[in-house]
């Protein structure tokens, strides 16, 4: 009898309680095409970056002036030796595109880390403490938004010396505004919820309330902003390199490759279309992933 009751109980729980929150999340992820496509393409590009030495048919820096401007495979003069052709210095274009993914990902990721830490700290502190702290942070955000990112970055990088790490540092110090704005309002929303009050009431020190209660509850916002900002940092690096003041030659930065090929685009258009497509695909994948994560974690906030 008791055994029977337990079975009924279990069936009841199953049919009324429905799937667990984790299962619901997994279902939403599986049902979201954009998220899956974005994550898939991004995973492929990350794999390409790690496996660059094995994937690239040749040295991306090796010049061969005898075989300059060879068209890619799908042209009548294309050959398997250089599947994506060669550039004006005879460098194998496929190898340069493959190695270029490393630069874009490294910049996107490092800028995200630097600006993410600055912006998250400012935003959470402003949202949690409010009052004067909030006024100061809001003021900093306003000042930062008033400065044209690309012009300030161009100037600083040009004056302080262009290098990969300088570009990362400058962009990291400039692009924290969106993190601060989003996390400030997210923190304001959770600041007065019961579990935060409860943590304070049992005497948790402030840093533990913030790290243990606030941070986990704003982390989905943080992940979404970080993803979208990574895409925007990659585009900014490409623009800086395109203007000749970002990553320096002969590094195979996709933006720099487009810049170097500008003068040849009328007769060899693939020289700008290939690295451009690579940039577009990478940023599109990152943005689809970010939008997808937002939809899946906060379906009501979809816009």
């Amino acid at each position, binding site marked *: 009898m008791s055994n029977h009751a337990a079975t009924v109980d279990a069936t009841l729980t199953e049919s009324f309680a429905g799937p667990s929150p984790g299962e619901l999340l997994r279902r939403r992820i599986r049902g979201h095409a954009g998220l899956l496509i974005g994550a898939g393409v991004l995973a492929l590009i990350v794999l390409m970056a790690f496996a660059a030495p094995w994937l690239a048919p040749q040295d991306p820096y090796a010049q061969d002036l005898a075989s300059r401007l060879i068209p890619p495979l799908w042209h009548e003069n294309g050959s398997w030796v250089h599947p994506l052709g060669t550039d004006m210095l005879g460098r194998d274009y496929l190898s340069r595109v493959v190695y270029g993914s490393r630069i874009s990902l490294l910049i996107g990721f490092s800028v995200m880390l630097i600006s993410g830490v600055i912006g998250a700290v400012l935003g959470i502190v402003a949202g949690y403490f409010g009052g004067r702290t909030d006024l100061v942070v809001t*003021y900093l955000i306003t000042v930062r938004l008033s400065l*044209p990112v690309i012009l300030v970055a161009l*100037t600083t990088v040009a004056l302080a010396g262009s290098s990969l790490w300088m570009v990362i540092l400058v962009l990291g110090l400039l692009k924290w505004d969106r993190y601060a704005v989003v996390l400030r309002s997210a923190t304001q929303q959770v600041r007065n919820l019961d579990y935060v009050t409860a943590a304070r009431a049992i005497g948790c020190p402030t840093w533990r309330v913030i790290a243990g209660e606030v941070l986990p509850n704003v982390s989905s916002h943080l992940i979404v902003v970080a993803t979208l900002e990574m895409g925007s940092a990659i*585009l900014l690096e490409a623009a800086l390199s395109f203007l000749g003041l970002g990553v320096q030659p002969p590094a195979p930065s996709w933006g720099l490759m487009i810049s170097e090929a500008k003068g040849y685009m*009328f007769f060899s258009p693939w020289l700008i*279309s290939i690295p*451009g497509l690579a940039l577009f695909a990478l940023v599109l994948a990152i*943005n689809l992933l970010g939008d997808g994560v937002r939809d899946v974690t906060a379906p009501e906030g979809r*816009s």
Partner: protein
Amino acid sequence: MLQYALKRAVLALLVALTVSLICFLLVNLSTDVATAMAGEGATAETIDAIRHQYGLDRPLAVQYFEWLGHAARGDFGDSLYFHTPVAALVAERMPTTMVLGAAALGFALLLSIPLGVIAALKPNSWIDRLALTIAVVGQAMPTFWFALLLMYLFGVTLHLLPISGGDTWQHFILPSVALGYYATPAIMRLTRSGMLEVLESDYIRTARAKGLRNTSVLFKHALRNAVAPVVALAAVQLGFLLGGSVVIETVFALNGLGYLAWEAIGHNDFPVVQAVVLLISLVYIVLTLLADLANAWLDPRIRIA
């Protein structure tokens, strides 16, 4: 309202002062100005002479207030590369960038508001999907690459439009489209979500219940309320577009502020760089101030908070 306007104006002034300090320090902390001005291979004596001649051996604070005092009167000194007053140089290039920025914003609004409204009226229809695709693609497209593609298609292949320079209004079409597309996703998303929200509100239901015609409900009641936040966003986007003009003007060889800044950066022409960065920041500050005041005027809740 007056009190809010005053408070908001004082804040804008403070921000402007802070921005001017950053513009000044940006150059003076990133590099040693005298060494950069002397050029490569200059002797220590030459560098010292330049340092003394331009007053660069004085404390930074003194230099800043002198620069600020002159800048407030519209005097940014002489360009080190063009050898003309910076103010005249900037005034000469300014109209091109303003026309480009306005045309780009115009293009963005013309594309994004109708699409955003229709997308909100018919969610999940093909036009909603088209709008979403345009937004997603626009966010991932490198602006300079899109500009080159437009150049290749309309200039080189179809021979429809000029691709370099700024002599006629046709020269502005491709640059405006390239730059404007960058601002489209944000405006379209805001229009769509604002419109969706407004359409579900009580006063729209009341208006429909009164038996008003559909077009009247849409244009007189819904759109006016949905578009209010878009005005503020458009002002912000115009500021971004002016900053982004450096890329587009360089691609299309348009002789505006952005191109001037790029030339100046390449030639260590500090007075010009500082003036352009400051000017574009000030335009942004004024635009956001005006947008905030307009919003407060339209929506009394903002003034009181």
